[in-house]
């Protein structure tokens, strides 16, 4: 042992003389916040990826967008854009940009100018124009941009002057401003891009990001730790904390142990089973809020017997949702009666859910010609999601409930990618899935998940195309008037309940256990984590 130590010491001496002195630690006065994140980010360019973890590590700390969601709400506020005007026909959006916004710098890059319209053009054209020099850099997959239908929606992005840009759209689109607040629309530096392109290493801009946001990336060790430092010249003022550290910790019970041990200050996605222990711990504040999500069971309405609305209604009545809330969510969820969560405007509270009633279910099944029941399957996702913390367990409960009304259901599970694809192709009888909102607009739930075109392309797992419903949501998309849209969506929700393409199961509550030293942390309804504005006591 002693010899080994000596050996190490010798190599140490050699290394030090070789001039590889280590960096000094940050001074004791610096305020550091440690966030135990749940997974490794895919990368640092939010437009290339779709995972919330990646957004937490990139767009939400490093970048800004033209407009943003006010921290902790779904309200849209000006950010890089001061103000904007929409033309009367709803197809031209003109943004007036804020002046004097500083870019961050790193070892490779020192900005020579402030943020301007060129950066906006760059950030959108990279994702939009396939001849753009950056279009194919880093794999060039812009799935959110694609998914929000941006390529066919945006006709052009024009620079009017350094601080004015105009978006010309191909059609009126009420949720457009909300879309621009999404992570994929983060603004990157075109000057940095030009320099890296000239240096022959364009992919660097996606790995060593430069943004206008409150934190700049200092160091990233895959699967272990991400370090950020506050951006001194941030346009809203420097963040109260100096250093932000993401300690990557995939297991939720391990995250809790670290939080208790003071090894981290904020943790996402606690185990529902641990919530009581967290409430009891005096050093932990358990914040909670309504989630912007819905977990559902979709009937494949193209397959018998689910073509019959009575069967769908009967099986809806047969499920004991309260038992699911108790056993699967451990109380960390609420029963869902609409496809959209109550936090979204236009939520129709007047809709009445099917009550749990096995007798009525049996009667209705008999009426539909299935007095002796039938055999079917329930697909259970292999992954944990905010809208469904344990699909296998949920499926076991549903299986037992349906067995009670004579329906035999086999539980089926595939690996996640396979699950998504096969359910998209409609190979299931019934499937458990869910959705977390992207932009707080009802269209983002009702059209994406239950619309007719979605039944074609597969996001509508019920494969349900019902004309009266479709007419309502299409009308709502074309109007900018919020009151009118609200009324249309409220009617749509009534129809979706009567027709029962889904059993709406639950909206989860979002819990964020934080150390009692942390102040002004606000739960992001989109499930993200924003650390600008958060402070910590030493």
């Amino acid at each position, binding site marked *: 042992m002693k010899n080994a130590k000596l050996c190490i010491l010798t190599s140490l001496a050699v290394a030090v003389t070789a001039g590889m002195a280590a960096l000094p630690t940050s001074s004791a006065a610096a305020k550091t916040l440690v966030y135990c994140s749940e997974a490794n980010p895919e990368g640092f360019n939010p437009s290339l990826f779709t995972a919330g973890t990646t957004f937490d590590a990139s767009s939400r700390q490093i970048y800004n967008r033209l407009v943003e969601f006010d921290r902790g709400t779904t309200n849209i506020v000006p950010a890089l854009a001061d103000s904007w005007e929409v033309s009367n026909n709803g197809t031209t959006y003109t943004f007036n940009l804020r002046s004097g916004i500083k870019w961050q710098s790193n070892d490779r890059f020192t900005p020579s100018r402030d943020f301007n319209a060129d950066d906006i053009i760059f950030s959108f054209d990279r994702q939009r124009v396939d001849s753009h020099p950056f279009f194919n850099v880093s794999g060039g997959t812009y799935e959110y941009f694609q998914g929000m239908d941006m390529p066919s929606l945006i006709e052009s992005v024009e620079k009017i002057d350094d601080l004015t840009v105009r978006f010309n759209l191909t059609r009126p689109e009420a949720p457009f401003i909300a879309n621009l607040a999404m992570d994929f629309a983060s603004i990157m530096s075109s000057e940095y891009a030009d320099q890296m392109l000239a240096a022959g290493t364009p992919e660097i801009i996606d790995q060593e990001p430069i943004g206008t946001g409150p934190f700049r990336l200092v160091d990233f060790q895959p699967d272990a730790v991400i370090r950020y430092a506050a951006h001194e010249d941030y346009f809203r003022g420097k963040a109260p904390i100096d250093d932000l550290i993401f300690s990557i910790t995939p297991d939720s019970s391990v995250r809790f142990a670290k939080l208790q041990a003071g090894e981290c200050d904020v943790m996402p996605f606690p185990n529902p089973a641990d919530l009581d222990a967290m409430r009891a711990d005096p050093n932990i504040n358990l914040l909670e809020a309504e989630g912007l999500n819905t977990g559902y069971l979709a009937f494949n309405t193209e397959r018998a017997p689910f073509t019959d609305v009575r069967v769908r209604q009967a099986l809806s009545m047969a499920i004991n949702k309260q038992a699911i809330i*108790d056993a699967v969510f451990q109380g960390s969820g609420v029963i869902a009666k609409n496809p959209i969560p109550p936090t979204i405007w236009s939520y129709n509270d007047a809709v009445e859910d099917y009550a749990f009633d096995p007798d009525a279910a049996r009667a209705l099944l008999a009426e539909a010609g299935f007095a002796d029941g039938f055999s079917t399957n329930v697909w259970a996702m292999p992954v944990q999601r905010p809208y469904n913390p344990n699909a296998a367990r949920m499926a076991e409960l549903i*299986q037992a409930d349906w067995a009670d009304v004579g329906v035999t259901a086999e539980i089926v599970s595939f690996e996640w990618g396979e699950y998504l694809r096969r359910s998209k192709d409609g190979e299931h009888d019934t499937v458990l899935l869910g959705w977390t909102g992207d932009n707080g607009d009802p269209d983002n739930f009702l059209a994406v998940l239950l619309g007719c075109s979605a039944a074609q392309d597969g996001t509508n797992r019920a494969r349900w195309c019902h004309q009266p419903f479709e007419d309502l949501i299409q009308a709502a998309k074309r109007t900018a008037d919020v009151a009118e849209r609200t009324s249309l969506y409220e009617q749509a929700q009534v129809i979706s309940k009567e027709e029962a393409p889904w059993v709406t199961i639950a909206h989860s509550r979002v819990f964020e256990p934080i150390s009692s030293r942390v102040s002004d942390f606000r739960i992001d309804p989109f499930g993200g984590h924003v650390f600008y504005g958060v402070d910590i006591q030493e």
Partner: protein
Amino acid sequence: MTVTDQEQAEQTAQATTEIEQPSPLRQFWSSFRENHGAVVGLFTIIIMIGIAFSADLIAPHDPNQQYRDFLLIPPMWQDGGNSQFIFGTDPIGRDMLSRLIHGSRFSLMIGAISVTLALFFGVTLGLAAGFFRGWVDNLIMRTVDIVMAFPALLLALAVVAILGPSLMNATIAIAIVALPQYIRITRAAVMGEAARDYVTASKTAGANTLRLMFITILPNAMAPIIVQATLGFSSAILDAAALGFLGLGAQPPTPEWGTMLATAREFIRRAWWVMTFPGMAILITVLAFNLMGDGLRDALDPRLKE
């Protein structure tokens, strides 16, 4: 290693036989009996098999019955326990003890099926390699090398991913991963035997190839294979549990022990019994097979005893 053990065992065994001539089975039993651990292992296994066969009779509850008013009840000796559920209940109110009892069926079944599969194919291929030598040997052994360059768990994972997650597919994957061991051991034992006089004698007497392989050589090369099969049982149970833990084994609501552990992970702090008992069950079963395997090895290789 096994080759030399085996050769030595043969020599010693032959030497002893010449002098005393007791029945081989009796001789085996008398030396096996001396190893107390092995006897304990044997009896544990017999009890396990008994439990597995009579699970329907002895389990106090239906293993899939959900008592929704009794979620996560601790074992009866703890505060809040309920004598109805001796080992407590799981997150959806199923009786732990009944699930553990029924789980013994799956673990033993996985062991039995995967060992049988691996034994059948492994012995055949190993016999062919050791008997024919030449290109057959080369082909088989190079393939074995390739398979063995993969970490076993990774290979099993890939096979299950290809076949789709289920108990049966996990069993097949485990058998495939274990194959190289059986091939190598059989080949080594066969090569040790093939050079013996009795084989040459049999050959000159005009015995055909198949007869030579399966009737003349194989029975004499069986000892290390039997030991490997016993130990294979325990590694099969462990591998199945690992696959179940990674979500690729038995599917719900099957009360397989590894799968029970996987779903129990989130309760590690709140409900220790959900995690502890299935792990104990695995440990005890695997330990029993290893003890017995050890005893078998000693009994079949008297040289290691005094």
